[in-house]
């Protein structure tokens, strides 16, 4: 069985992610040192908090190169919430207007804040907090055994905006919050979810099971 490593970089509690993997019968360990990445087959980057802090810790603790090497080797990678945003080129969060705080740049595109003005005069509440339905338009193996429009748990103010075309898609599922936004991405061996599968009850557990089975 493959071994899943969860990256600990001081950005939130990781036990619930590890426990969720254990619940579905996967072998998941929390990695505290960057050199341990080589000992696992799959990598998970979770995280809550600010984008800039997260990049600072990833840098200081030497995670960036091992993560890159893992992905370049074609091994499966899963980003969760902030861990999804970090794999893009950069984020507007705490950035000087017009600029971005640089991210890992593994996928093209950037991270933007939800626009509070909905156009019809209405106001969108930010953060989005709660259960929203995801709708996929690609056969992402992460969704095996799930019904279209299943509800998953979101808590976030920012979301990714991948640079993609119909021929080179990156988004694999979308959700609607004052308009459509990217809820999951999938490119080759890289997957990521904006929602928290470890907090999305049975639906989320199935998604983690699907990742473990890849």
């Amino acid at each position: 069985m493959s071994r899943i490593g969860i990256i600990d970089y001081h950005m939130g509690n990781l036990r619930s992610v590890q426990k969720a993997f254990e619940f579905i019968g996967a072998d998941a360990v929390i990695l505290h040192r960057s050199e341990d990445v080589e000992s696992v087959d799959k990598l998970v980057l979770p995280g809550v908090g600010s984008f800039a802090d997260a990049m600072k810790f990833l840098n200081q603790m030497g995670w960036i190169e091992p993560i890159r090497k893992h992905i370049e080797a074609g091994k499966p990678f899963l980003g969760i919430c902030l861990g999804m945003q970090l794999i893009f080129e950069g984020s507007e969060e705490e950035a000087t207007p017009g600029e971005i705080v640089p991210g890992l740049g593994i996928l093209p595109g950037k991270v933007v804040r939800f626009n509070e003005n909905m156009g019809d005069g209405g106001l969108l509440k930010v953060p989005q907090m709660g259960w929203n339905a995801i709708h996929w338009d690609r056969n992402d193996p992460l969704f095996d055994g799930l019904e279209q429009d299943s509800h998953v748990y979101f808590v976030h103010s920012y979301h990714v905006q991948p640079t993609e075309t119909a021929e080179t898609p990156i988004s694999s599922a979308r959700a609607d919050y004052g308009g459509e936004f990217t809820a999951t991405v999938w490119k080759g061996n890289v997957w990521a979810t904006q929602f928290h599968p470890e907090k999305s009850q049975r639906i989320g557990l199935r998604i983690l099971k699907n990742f473990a089975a890849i």
Partner: protein
Amino acid sequence: MITNRIIPCLDVNEGRVVKGVNFVQLRDAGDPVEVAKKYDEQGADELVFLDITASHEGRDITLDMVKRVAEECFMPFTVGGGIRTIDDVTRLIQAGAEKVSINTAAVVNPKIVEQTARRFGRCATVVNIDPKRVPMEELRARCTNTDSPVESQLKPGYGFEIHTHGGRKPVGLDPVAFAKYVVELGAGEIILTSMDGDGTKDGYDIEITKLIGDAVNVPVVASGGCGSPEHMRQVLTETRADAALAASIFHYGEYTIQETKEYLAKAGLPMRMMPADPLTV
């Protein structure tokens, strides 16, 4: 489309659920993990644990409980009650709570809201606001955060004032101005408990929920006064509240979460209904 959340609130003392839980099938109705799992099976969208533990030693037991819930229940939950310092917040988050709800400390030392948001993000930072109607002249004399506290239309001559200590202690703050202030500091959600409504089962306080919902642009959880699913329908349709919190109607088995959500879905509210179990498919 995002769904409205239905949230049972559980009072916890020294790591045990204490207020009126009578699920018949539970081996031990006081175990928070078992209670959480039961509500999870019924379709609860989130849980709020309110820690009423008085002693210092008791709070370590609470941390242990939070850890167990986080590790065994794969659902979102908030922990509130007794949070005084950023260290208290840190311990709860490290134990696995994804949101902490700050009540008295936000009134006494609003900086804690800023510190929590800075450290753990706006999404983890919840502020509890507990308003109650008091005579306008008293309110004007005490109010420190605005020159023009809001007067109640429903009860003329009265205005709203934040109270702590379970509604016993007025603190001279207008809840509308205070809500705006804590959101500026970094609160990502407000749990609004009307002290006039709390325990009455006469329905949520629509008036103050509407005022707060219109004043801030973060999610608002309506709390206090719920006696039926119809009360939830009212507050979710007549105000900008995103979620409805209740205690006794669920704890005493008057309504299950599932029948509550079926009622609300039928009334046209967006609800997350329980799907077929994808782990057994």
